[in-house]
């Protein structure tokens, strides 16, 4: 009896393997800092929609932007049998191990919210260009983003600006910081009698309680700051920083700007909790997903000695009215429906890049008419 059961079990397992192999859907992995925080959950929402529209299996690994977990996530996804992955790494140095893993395991990879800097990380950049499995990167103009936020703060009369990052050495933070510094330099050149000062960053992690304690420490140490930039971190750091300012009775007195839209941004703008925010870029990973999907399908062949680079626009919201329009098309709904996602997957890479660059509230309004 036992032998008969064992034979049936083995046959059943063998059939499952054969069936699975014959009906294998593409499996794309997502390596993300968190799939449950404010920004991460929005990314997951649109990626799940794309996976459903394209009949693709998708799996997530949360790495918390911890270096060894970021590099480990590539190994985990390769071991799980992923045909491709998209990754939001922390430091660019991690991409060395990630690209090597993907090349060794023949798994396509694209970055989202990140790009390897050719000057700062020449080895990783070279590796990315040479690897047939590194497809490309989708990223935002972080330096311009940083500069624009400083412009907004300076126009609102802020002259002593504190800065709260999330993790030291994060590639995106370093670019935004460059942008903030550039913004301050530009303002000071144009207004030599009315200069602004940007303080050195302190790091508040990616959770709201650490975001609050760091913001409190910054404000306690600099009681004359009139603005705080919470550089990013997925949204929870900002929630903590706003809690700090509120509990210290400084709401509206310290102007706060950030990147990554909050779920209650409209209320924060109306109450003076936030002065402005850049964000709405949660669709960035969708385009990285499309790059990898088409690489798996054999539709995209990356240029020799290079990789695809897709620039994604930020949306800027500085009033409740701005937010209402954003909320209608990006919060209540997704900017792309299933039909549009299926059509997007059939685009050539240059057309995909144009599609990404064109995304805006007006673009969605036009498509929904």
């Amino acid at each position: 009896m036992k032998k008969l059961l064992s034979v049936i079990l083995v046959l059943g397992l063998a059939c499952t393997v054969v069936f699975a192999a014959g009906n294998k859907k593409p499996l794309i992995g997502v390596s993300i800092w968190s799939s449950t925080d404010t920004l991460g959950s929005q990314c997951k929402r649109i990626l799940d929609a794309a996976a459903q529209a394209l009949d693709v299996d998708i799996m997530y690994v949360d790495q918390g932007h911890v270096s060894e977990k970021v590099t480990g996530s590539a190994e985990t996804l390769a071991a799980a049998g992923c045909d491709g992955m998209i990754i939001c790494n922390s430091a660019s140095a991690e991409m060395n191990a990630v690209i090597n893993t993907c090349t060794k395991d023949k798994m396509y990879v694209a970055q989202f919210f990140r790009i390897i800097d050719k000057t700062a990380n020449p080895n990783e950049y070279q590796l990315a260009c040479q690897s047939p499995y590194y497809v490309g990167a989708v990223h935002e103009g972080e330096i311009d983003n940083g500069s624009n936020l400083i412009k907004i703060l300076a126009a609102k009369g802020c002259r002593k600006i504190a800065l709260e990052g999330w993790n030291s050495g994060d590639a995106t933070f370093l670019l935004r910081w460059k942008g903030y510094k550039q913004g301050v330099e530009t303002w000071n050149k144009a207004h030599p009698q009315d200069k602004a000062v940007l303080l050195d960053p302190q790091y508040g992690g990616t959770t709201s309680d650490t975001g609050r304690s760091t913001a409190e420490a910054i404000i306690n140490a600099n009681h004359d700051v009139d603005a705080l930039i919470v550089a990013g971190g997925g949204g929870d750091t900002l929630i903590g920083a706003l809690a700090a300012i509120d509990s210290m009775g400084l709401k509206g007195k310290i102007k706060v700007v950030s990147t990554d839209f909050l779920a209650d941004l409209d209320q924060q703008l109306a109450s003076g909790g936030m002065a402005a925010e850049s964000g709405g870029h949660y669709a960035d990973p969708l385009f990285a997903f499309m790059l990898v999907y088409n690489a798996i399908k054999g539709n995209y062949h990356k240029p020799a000695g290079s990789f695809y680079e897709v620039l994604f626009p930020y949306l800027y919201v500085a009033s409740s009215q701005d937010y209402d329009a954003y909320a209608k098309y990006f919060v209540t709904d997704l900017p792309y429906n299933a039909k549009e996602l299926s059509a997007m997957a059939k685009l050539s890479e240059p057309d995909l890049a144009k599609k990404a660059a064109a995304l805006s509230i007006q673009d969605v309004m036009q498509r929904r008419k």
Partner: protein
Amino acid sequence: MHRINIVSESFLKFKTSKYFGFLVLVVMTLFFWGFFRLLSPSNFGTSRLVISYFQTSIQYAVGGCGLYFIVVMGLFDFSVGANIVLSSLVGVLLSRQFGYWGLIFGCLLCGTLIGAFNGILYSRLRIPSMIVTVGLMLILESVANYVVTLDKSGFPGKLSNSNILAFGHAPWNYLAAGIAFLLMVFLLRFTKTGTYCNAIGSDELVAKNMGVNVERYKFIGFVLLHFFVGIMALLTVSYGRGMLAVTGMSSMDRNFKPLMGTFFGVAFKKYGCPVTAIVLGEFIIIMIFNGLVALNVPTTINDFVTGAVLLTIVSLTNRGLKGSVVK
């Protein structure tokens, strides 16, 4: 000669009394306050800022009190951070329907139940607590991620209702923490649990031979630890106005701040003032953090300095005799 002997005997007696322990703690606190105040008088250590530092430290002190019960018995629990995350998220989820009652009882009940579960698993599996609790940490993190998906409010894991944020500021956070500290003192001083936890920690075999049900009190230790962790979860989620579900052992980060306070408590156990040591220890750690920010030192160096200070204090106050076996 006789007078000198009396004075030195009195001094030796004073050195082992709890008043000496208090004195050392107060002197250490004043030392760190004075150090940063001298270096940065304009933005450190005013009365308003000291209150702010203390307010930040009390949540970790509550967790440190809980950890004391098992650390003093030679056990360890890596799942404290995961429990904070899970209990917070359960509290937030229940607060959507039941307001404050949901938040408070969600955090406390979830925390305590996890403690009971940990205790049962530890006693049934009969493997070191460190190993059991690493496994439990992974399980609890997964459960927390599932709990977040049950929150359909649009703000998963966030205390979006401004009417239930009382435990994030004075006086309610002080009240909750104060109750926890008084409870801790009561348990340690006036109950068998406190006495037996210390006895088991001193020599488990002797305690067993004396008739102490060691397994039972270890179980009680886990339950009490996680009850206090439930209180810490309430304070933490109110402080940050939300909680983030994490995976991949990231919750372990949350173990270490309360643990540092526990080390102070264990170091000052011999003076009979562990709770005071935990509270002031956490206060010193937060003061150091804020002092270094006031001096514009990056937060990355902050962790290095905090670790070094902790090692120095604990080794100066709790150094074993030369040749003794240190576990």
